[in-house]
């Protein structure tokens, strides 16, 4: 027999104190198996030993909560279903961070598999999967591999299960370079009289193992998930489990079939720490003991020891305690589905866990200390300094105006200006941007210089202009310099507002996620009302008029700057997203991802976020019903940003009262609800355009949040708005642009303030929404809002094909859509660009006809160079589609045949009636 040495204790992640405690519970030295069982039960993952006392601060009760934290998943009442049967929504979110970093496909896949098992263990059919993903910087060498593996893994498992993945969020931040976060959420539906729990009450009942066979997968996964990473961790690879969604699909159907019979006393998923945690938790909750014979466990490999079987994390397995008389019936169901079914022991009233193997008792230990007397640490935490609000940063911009004069036509002058830019200016390091305009006899070049560009740069410019004059091609050339200091609250440095918008929509954090969610089956089950890409996802409750809205959110940069405000904001943002869909927010689940809790500054982040969450949950009557804590997300002492991911679920009583963000109509007025002060601290505008990450995050006024949310829900039920969105990352202008792109409509905007215009459009003040309403109803909306004490401001009107701001600047909607949708695919497959190819008019026509055989096509060569065409296409394929969707259909059909430069083809599309 193995002697327990200090090294063995340390390898099991236990401290000497904890070992002493184990000895006193055992009344003797434990053997290796017993030590292994204690180590997983007392790991951070299973025991919450650093977090328990703080999690207790979260509100968990409300009239509609049927079951709060502590079971496989939480349960809420969602009212009556068909024939008056009472329905429940069951949901939970869980992390699979470490495994996904080591093997992204299998790590993410088994994370999804595990969370679905948590939900169907309780008697629910999973109806929607969501996720919250964080990756390192997009240009970090590992990010692309991890992102594509995780996305494929989530899809690979969920798609096969036939459960739609309806949404989620994905962020990129260098703080996750060494520790990505993969948080998966699952929502299921059950009838209230058929909810199953894990308390194995009663002695002498059979303990049944069902599902896949046990192998040596993931042994010590639970202790791995509770250990910090170092560079040697990749060597820990043998602990990776392989997911088998096919077996899990059969397990789901078999379990739900058995749940329709009167057979199950208790049931628990074998997740992390497999047979150990499932048997201990079931016995502890039932107040009894388990006596199990491991020789009866279905095994995939030969020669497995008791230690390996008890600690294996093989997937797709369940442990049940059933009524003795139901054994034959239960076995027949599992046989039908081709799954293992084995009675491996029975319940006892001894309060002890007895493990037999090869004829001997291998472990005999008290159950209560394993489950309930795990250490409960009060880890020290520091007082964090409160950040000051960000003072509006000022930047210096330097612009030069080069004037060329010559007795030449406007076109010739333009050619000269272009040549000067291409051949000289674009090669100068200090030149940030250049543009030109030309009239007869005169060309003007606008050159923006680096703020640090000195006299040398100006001299270079002047010289370039003078050189041109010396050639005699222009009569005179001059360069004037203009230096000014601007506030970033007034304008986006030297850019215009819409250029800044386009730049933001092309950043990794704000660009379209369609590359990700087009790899998830989001329409299977035929109940997806709002697919990914909207505010909250909405799925219909099958056979009823109800629907559930689901949203996952957190803003880690806010949490890092001010944990308490960040915790509040994460809860409030899900609440706001649900309200924007027209749903009544009911409850949340969470996944609390932090660094090493033994460091006081990390513990301070954890405590701050939890207390902020608790405050928001209280104020919004929005309890926590399930969740998961993932600590030690650190590599080489570098902790992740604090990331308390929140998953909120709300109820829409009548599915036709679902609001979307992409349904504005031409002629609708855009109205902002809530107060905009232009809060720039921690905004994406500051971080992504100017590299400024200072200042306090925006505060959440929970009272205003609640009032505005309730108002939004009311007007949605009254059918007033045609489209609704909440306002979050990127501020009002980004939210407005997303509504416009979604609807495929342009938008004419007017800035309602004279000062701090950029702060108005890009600030991230909380508690705000944008709605579109038919113009004749706009005043009514504003009146209603003011009566409810909510500030409402008209911002513009939908229509046309461009976004126009203050009649001063404009950008084509299709260009914005291209930037928004093209960013992620380009980042993921950087070398796919094909060179543009000049094409003959007839070839373009025949390619269009191949895709759209009914089309009437007219092609015009705009420049006479065989390179710039305009096509007018009339086809029935355009019926019912927005102009943007029509153009995309044509561009996509020609893609790969015409090369990258599709914009050389100007389109006019007409629906055929």
């Amino acid at each position, binding site marked *: 027999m193995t002697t327990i040495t200090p090294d063995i204790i340390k390898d099991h992640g236990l401290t000497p104190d904890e070992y002493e405690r184990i000895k006193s519970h055992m009344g003797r030295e434990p053997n290796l198996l017993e030590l292994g069982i204690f180590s997983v039960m007392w790991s951070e993952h299973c025991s919450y030993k650093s977090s328990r006392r703080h999690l207790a601060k979260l509100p968990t009760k409300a009239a509609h909560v049927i079951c709060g934290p502590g079971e496989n998943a939480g349960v809420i009442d969602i009212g009556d279903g068909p024939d008056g049967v009472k329905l429940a929504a069951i949901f939970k979110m869980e992390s699979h961070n470490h495994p996904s970093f080591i*093997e992204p496909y299998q790590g993410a896949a088994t994370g999804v598999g595990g969370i679905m098992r948590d939900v169907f263990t309780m008697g629910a059919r999973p109806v929607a999967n969501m996720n919250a993903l964080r990756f390192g910087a997009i240009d970090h060498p590992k990010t692309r591999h991890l992102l594509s593996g995780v996305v494929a893994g989530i899809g690979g498992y969920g798609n096969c299960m036939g459960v739609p993945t309806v949404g989620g969020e994905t962020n990129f931040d260098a703080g996750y370079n060494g520790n990505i976060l993969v948080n998966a959420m699952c929502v299921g539906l059950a009838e209230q009289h058929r909810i199953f729990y894990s308390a194995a009450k009663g002695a002498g009942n059979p303990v049944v193992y069902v599902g*896949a066979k046990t192998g040596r997968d993931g042994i010590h996964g639970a202790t791995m998930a509770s250990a910090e990473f170092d560079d040697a961790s990749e060597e820990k690879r*043998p602990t*990776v489990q*392989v*997911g088998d969604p*096919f077996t899990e699909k059969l397990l789901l159907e078999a379990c739900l079939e058995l749940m329709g019979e009167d057979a199950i006393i208790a049931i628990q998923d074998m997740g992390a720490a497999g047979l150990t945690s499932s048997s201990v938790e079931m016995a502890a909750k039932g107040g009894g003991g388990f006596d199990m014979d491991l020789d009866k466990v279905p095994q995939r490999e030969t020669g497995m020891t008791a230690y390996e079987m008890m600690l294996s994390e093989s997937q797709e397995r369940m442990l049940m305690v059933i009524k003795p008389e139901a054994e034959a019936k239960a076995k027949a169901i599992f046989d039908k589905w081709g799954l293992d079914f084995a009675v491996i022991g029975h319940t006892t009233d001894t309060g002890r866990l007895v493990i037999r193997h090869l004829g001997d008792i291998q472990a005999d230990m008290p159950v209560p200390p394993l489950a309930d007397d795990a250490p409960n640490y009060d880890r020290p935490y520091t007082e964090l300094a409160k950040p000051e609000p960000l003072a509006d940063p000022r930047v210096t911009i330097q612009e030069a105006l080069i004037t060329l004069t010559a007795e030449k036509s406007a076109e010739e002058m333009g050619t000269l200006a272009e040549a000067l830019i291409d051949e000289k200016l674009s090669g100068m390091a200090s030149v940030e941007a250049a543009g030109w305009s030309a009239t007869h006899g005169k060309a003007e070049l606008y050159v923006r210089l680096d703020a640090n560009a000195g006299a040398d740069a100006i001299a270079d410019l002047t010289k370039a202009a003078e050189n041109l004059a010396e050639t005699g091609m222009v009569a005179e050339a001059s360069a004037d310099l203009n230096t000014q200091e601007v506030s970033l609250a007034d304008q986006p440095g030297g850019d215009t507002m819409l250029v800044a918008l386009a730049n933001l929509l092309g950043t990794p954090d704000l660009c379209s996620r369609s590359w990700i969610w087009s790899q998830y089956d989001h329409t299977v089950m035929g109940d997806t009302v709002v697919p990914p890409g909207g505010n909250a996802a909405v799925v219909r409750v099958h056979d009823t008029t109800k629907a559930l809205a689901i949203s996952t959110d957190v803003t880690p940069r806010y949490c890092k700057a001010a944990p308490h405000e960040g915790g509040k904001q994460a809860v409030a943002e899900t609440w706001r997203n649900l309200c924007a869909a027209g749903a009544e927010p009911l409850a949340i689940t969470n996944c609390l991802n932090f660094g090493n809790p033994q460091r006081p500054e990390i513990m301070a982040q954890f405590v701050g976020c939890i207390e902020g969450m608790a405050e928001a949950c209280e104020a919004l009557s929005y309890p926590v019903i399930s969740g998961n804590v993932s600590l030690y997300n650190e590599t080489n002492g570098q902790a992740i940003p604090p990331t308390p991911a929140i998953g909120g679920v709300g109820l829409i009583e009548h599915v036709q009262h679902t609001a979307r963000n992409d349904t504005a109509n031409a002629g609708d007025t855009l109205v902002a609800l809530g107060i905009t002060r232009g809060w720039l601290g921690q905004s994406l505008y500051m971080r992504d355009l100017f590299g400024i990450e200072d200042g306090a995050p925006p505060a959440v006024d929970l009272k205003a949040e609640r009032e505005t949310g309730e108002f939004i829900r009311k007007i949605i039920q009254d059918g007033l708005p045609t489209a609704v969105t909440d306002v979050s990352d990127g501020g009002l202008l980004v939210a407005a642009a997303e509504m416009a792109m979604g609807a495929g409509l342009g938008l004419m905007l007017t800035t309602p303030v004279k000062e701090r215009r950029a702060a108005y459009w890009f600030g991230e003040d909380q508690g705000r929404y944008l709605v579109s309403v038919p113009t004749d109803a706009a005043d009514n909306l504003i009146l209603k809002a003011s009566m409810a004490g909510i500030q409402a401001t008209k911002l513009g009107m939908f229509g046309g094909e461009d976004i126009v701001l203050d009649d001063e600047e404009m950008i084509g909607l299709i260009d914005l859509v291209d930037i928004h949708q093209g960013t992620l695919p380009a980042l993921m497959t950087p070398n796919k660009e094909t060179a543009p190819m000049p094409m003959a008019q007839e070839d373009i026509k025949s390619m269009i006809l191949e895709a759209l055989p009914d089309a009437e096509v007219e092609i015009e060569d705009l420049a006479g160079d065989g390179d710039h065409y305009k096509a007018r296409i009339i086809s029935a394929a355009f019926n019912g589609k927005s102009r943007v969707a029509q153009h995309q259909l044509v561009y996509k059909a020609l893609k790969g045949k015409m090369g990258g430069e599709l914009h050389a083809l100007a389109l006019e599309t007409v629906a055929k009636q």
Partner: protein
Amino acid sequence: MKARVHITLRPSILDPQGNAIEGALTGLGFEGVSGVRQGKVIELELTETDEAAARSKVEDMCKKLLANPVMENYEIELVG
């Protein structure tokens, strides 16, 4: 020189595909089948003519790309 790389799951790793195939074979009436494991074969043409050098090159390819050391083993066969 031609190389053939046989990639198989390490024995301790679950092979869902192999399990499902085994079940289907039994369902079709093939009795006495067990231990079904599915793998991959990758064929490569190499300009290298020295056998030892070729083997070490392919070995390197296996480690870096062709096999996933997390869960796969590989065997290299040099043919002609």
